Every structure is written in C-alpha cells, then in structure tokens.
C-alpha cells in the first residue's frame, strides 16, 4: 500500500490532470468560458439581490420602525394605550449609553379618526419629537409639500397625501384628530396641516398623521408617557447585540424589547424569499453549466481509454485514475470559477460604484422600500455560496467520468483505439 499513500505518487496525477486539460485548449477554453459566464451572471445576480435586500432592510427599518423598539409589556400585541411607558426619562440615558446606539427617540402611537370639514378617515397618529425624529427615521424625507414639524410646534400635523386626499384637505387646513385615552375616553384635538408626505408605502400615505409629541401626550392624557422608545443603531450588525443587552438590562415583566424584524417580519421574509429564489437560480445555472463540464469530461475520458489502460498496466490503481479525472474536473471548474469571479467581481465593482438606475420602476420600488438606484453589493457569504456550489457541482460532474475511468478493465481498455 506504500505506493498509494505516497505524496510523490499522487503528485504525478495532479500534473497529468493539469496537462490533460491543455491537450484540447479550445475545448477547455470554451467549457471554462461557459462556466465563467454562468458564474459571473450568478455573482451579478446575487450582488443585485444583496444590494436590494440591504436597501429593503435598511429602508424598512429606518422608514418608521427603527432598529429596536422598547414598549411597555404587551403593547405591540394589543396596541392598547393603557400599556404605555409612564416615564421614559430614566430609561433614555441608560439606552443612549449602550455601545452601537446612534439615536433614541420617544413616540406615542395611537389609532384614531381624522375629520375635516368635508370627510372622516381612519388614521394612525404618531406623536414625535420633531428634531430627533428627523434624524431617526426617513419620514422627514417623504415631505412633498409644506415643511417638517418645527421644534416648538404645538398644533401642527403632517399627513400622508392619501389621507389628505380622503379628508380633502391641503396645507394650512384644519383637521380634528380623535382617539381613545388610556382610560377609554374619547379625546379630540385640532391641528393645522403643515406638510404632506408621500412615501409610496400605502400604510404611511393613507394613514399617517404625525404631530408633536408633547401635544399628543397632553391631548391623550399621557403626561410624560410614551408608547414607543425607538432606537437607531450605528450599523445593522449592532441590532442584535443592542437588543440583547437591553433585554438583559430592562425588567422583562415591565418592558418588551423588540427588533424591527420581530415587529414586522415582512422585510425579513422578503430577504428569506429572495434567498430561496437565488438558490433556485443558482441551482439551475450550476446544473446547466455543469452538464457542459460533464460532457467535456466524458469526451475527454472516452478519448483516453487506452491511455488509462496503459496507466493501469503500468501499476496505476483504480483510485489513482478516479482522483486524476476528478482533479481534472475540479481544475476545469476552478479555472472557470476564477474567470467568472474576476468578470463578475469587475461588474459588481463597477455598478456598485455607479449604481443601476431603475427609476422607471420607482413606484413599484418605493412600495417595496427600495431606492430607484440599486447598488449591487456582494456579500462574502454569497460568494462562498456560489464557489461552494460550483465546486460541489464539479465533484458531482466529475464523479461519473472518474468512476468510469476507475472501473476500466486494463486488458479491455488496452484494446481500445
């Protein structure tokens, strides 16, 4: 068995495998090129997907929800105003002191009814701190007319343009907002429309009424109470660590600490769906391209049956031939993969800087929390997935010809011409 285990023995098959690939350079080039184009396309597709998903996650989190929210226990499920944080002032410095926290704001969130002189409509009332909220969320960026809430605003309100249409109001018009207080009493307050928002997200455009926090607290009898403490972290990687630390710090029987994906799993599910979709595309492309590799390897094997017989006559074992043919396949796929990664990497790098302008689909994109310009970005995990799938495919495509080579009977193989 010594000759099997010797590295010297195996090294000749590595050399043979490499040189055999260049016996037919055009065939090798064409096969590797097909692989390269397939892998480059996969890379680009994956990078588009990663870019989109990153946009969706970021935009989704920062549109309204924030990365992490703290509520009084049970509020998110019941949406009852009675379950509010009575005095957040003690919590705010504690939260701001956490590593990775970029911004913290307080809000009051309540379902209510908006009325104008002409119409009524359901509304989702948000009481916000005007200045920090503009840093916290993307809401201020959705203004299409008027201006954002002033720092000392009292009875100003920003409406989604859909809601404004239903109420038949415009800038400067008065509306009345009605909502239930924590005690269940109905309270109302008069506001003047200061601005209109258009986000492309139906919930925002058709329901949102954003008013100053202090006014909403007073109107709904909350005192200094809030329903949400909303946290923006410095980057996506900080979401779970910050969430985890706050869960440890805050008493669980009084507070609930939730990540954006816990509050609304939609974006996360989009990401998961896109992931599955990418896997399916990856599988199809890999199968098609590797069928080409299999064909090439079977042709190559068929041409060399006598040579394999000669090698077996000289003392090569079935395992040697198996590894040699498998190695050839892996090298062929490796070459194609390298070229594909270079080509795909170049495309991703270029478009990652320049962006791909898809603004003609802007309406659909905004509905999906996407920007009209997409910047492909390739995650290491995506590259590893493509490379791993290629190599796994190479092994699968290589096994059949390798097995055929290994199962040759020397005397019969030597008779082949």
């Amino acid at each position, binding site marked *: 068995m*010594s*000759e099997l285990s*010797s590295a*010297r*023995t195996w*090294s*000749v098959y590595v050399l*043979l495998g490499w*040189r*055999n690939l*260049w*016996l037919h350079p055009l065939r090798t080039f064409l096969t590797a090129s097909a692989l390269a184009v397939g892998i480059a396309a996969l890379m680009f597709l994956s990078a588009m997907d990663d870019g989109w998903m990153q946009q969706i996650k970021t935009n989704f989190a920062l549109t309204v929800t924030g990365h992490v929210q703290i509520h009084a226990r049970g509020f998110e499920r019941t949406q009852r105003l009675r379950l509010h944080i009575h005095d957040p002032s003690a919590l705010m410095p504690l939260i701001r002191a956490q590593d990775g926290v970029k911004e913290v704001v307080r809000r009051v969130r309540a379902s209510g009814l908006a009325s104008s002189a002409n119409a009524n409509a359901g509304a989702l009332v948000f009481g916000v701190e005007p200045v920090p909220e503009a840093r916290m969320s993307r809401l201020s960026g959705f203004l299409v007319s008027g201006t954002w809430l002033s720092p000392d605003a009292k009875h100003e309100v920003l409406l989604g343009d859909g809601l404004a249409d239903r109420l038949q109001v415009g800038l400067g018009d008065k509306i009345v907002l009605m909502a239930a207080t924590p005690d269940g009493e109905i309270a109302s307050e008069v506001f003047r429309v200061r601005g209109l928002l258009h986000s492309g997200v139906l919930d925002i455009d058709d329901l949102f009424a954003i008013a100053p926090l202090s006014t909403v607290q007073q109107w709904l009898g909350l005192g200094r109470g809030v329903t949400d403490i909303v946290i923006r972290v410095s980057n996506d990687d900080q979401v779970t660590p910050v969430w985890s630390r706050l869960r440890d710090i805050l008493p669980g029987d009084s507070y609930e600490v939730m990540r954006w994906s816990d509050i609304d799993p939609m974006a996360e599910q989009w990401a998961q769906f896109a992931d599955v979709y990418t896997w399916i595309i990856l599988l199809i492309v890999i199968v098609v391209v590797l069928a080409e590799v299999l064909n090439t390897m079977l042709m190559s094997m068929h041409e060399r049956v*006598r*040579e394999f017989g*000669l*090698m*077996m*006559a*000289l*003392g*090569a*074992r*079935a395992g*040697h031939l198996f590894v040699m043919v498998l190695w050839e396949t892996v090298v062929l796929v490796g070459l194609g993969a390298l070229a594909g990664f270079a080509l795909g990497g170049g495309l991703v790098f270029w478009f990652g800087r320049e962006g791909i302008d898809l603004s003609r689909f802007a309406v659909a994109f905004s509905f999906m929390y996407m920007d009209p310009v997409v910047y492909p970005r390739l995650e290491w995990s995506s590259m590893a997935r493509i490379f791993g799938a290629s190599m796994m495919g190479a092994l699968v495509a290589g096994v059949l010809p390798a097995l055929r080579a290994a199962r040759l009977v*020397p*005397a019969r193989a*030597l008779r082949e*011409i």
Partner: protein
Amino acid sequence: MALIHAHRLCKTYPSGSTRVVALDDVSFDVEQGDFVVLAGRSGSGKTTLLNMLGALDRPDSGALRVAGMDLLSMGEAERASFRLWHIGFVFQAYNLIRVLTARENVAYVLQLQGKPSRQRLQTADAWLAEVGLEGMGDRRPDQMSGGQQQRVAVARALAMSPSLVLADEPTANLDTHTGGELIRLMRRINERNGTTFVIASHDPAVIDAARTLIVMRDGRIEQTACRD
C-alpha cells in the same frame, strides 16, 4: 525455480452467442534470464497469454505463478501492485502517456513506486541514454518517431528493474531497420543484465532473436524450441 510457471491455462471469450477459445490447456515454464518469443498468427492467443502473464487478465482455469507469486489468488489491488513492481510492459502502439515528456514517461513508474525525484530523473536519463535517446528526454511523444517512442517504452519497462519484461508486437508498427534495432537492443539488455523477456510477435526478426521459441496456434502451444 522457474520465473514463470503456467499450468493448463484456459480462457474463452464471449463472441455473440458463442464463446471463442483464446487459450486451450496451455502449460510452460520460463527460466530467469530467458528471452522468449511467443510466435503465431493473429488470433493464436499470444496477446491473451501475455495479458495473463502480466496480471492484466485472468484465465478461466489453470495455475499461474510469476516471480514466485500466485497471480490467480490476487485481488485487483495486489495485481496492480504486482505489475508495478515486477512487470515491464512494451505494447505495439500508443505506449506512452501523451502529455508527459520522454523522461517523465520513463520516470512515471518510478514515481508510482514512490522513488524520490532526483533518483527517478537520474534513472530515467540513464535508461534513455542506454536505449540511444540521450538528450531527447524533454520531447513529448508527438515529437518523436515510432521507433523512438518504442525505445522510450523499453527504457520505461527496464527502469523499474522488473522481474519480467512483456512486449506485445513491439516491432509491428516499425520499419524493418528500426524494428531490427529495437530487438537487438532488447537482446543486448537481456544478455548483459539477465532481464527476462517474453515477446509476442510474428516478426521473423524477432523470432530469429529468440532463445526460447513458443509457437502458438488456435490457443494451444504447437511447438517449443530452445536455441542454446
């Protein structure tokens, strides 16, 4: 003890609905250092017998010992190992691995044996010089003539110090002059080194060189003759 002891070897091959008898009750012994030529027309069973001796094929029945080893009781891995360490092969054509140079072709078997790089290259160069191909070690098979390729095959067969060299029609694809040179080379090595050769051929020049001549016909040994 004889280097080869073949006793009542039989072999048939399927051919359509019938079976063709390739070897029919073949028995013979070959002594160490002999230069044996298996002669006979095409289809007489020469190549089949050579394949048996080289552990490339198995008889249906009979007994066969080569270099003291019972070839019929060996598994495939043992037979591969036996070929690697004991048998040097020279075939009629397509003898060399196309993508390796002459030197690498000779060194290939030594590499399979696990010999270190320097030793196998020195041995390869020495044997290439021995067969008259000094300075041609870097040539690929497609850069060499048929006679040169056969010489490389002889060098490869001898470089691993085999117990036995088996050659199947080694001169069949060569012109008379080149074929004559090749067979004289083999004979010279046999006489000088005592290497045992068994050559299947119907080339008169090869038959003339035989020390022991075994004539085969229809799978049987028709005649055996010793020249010494």
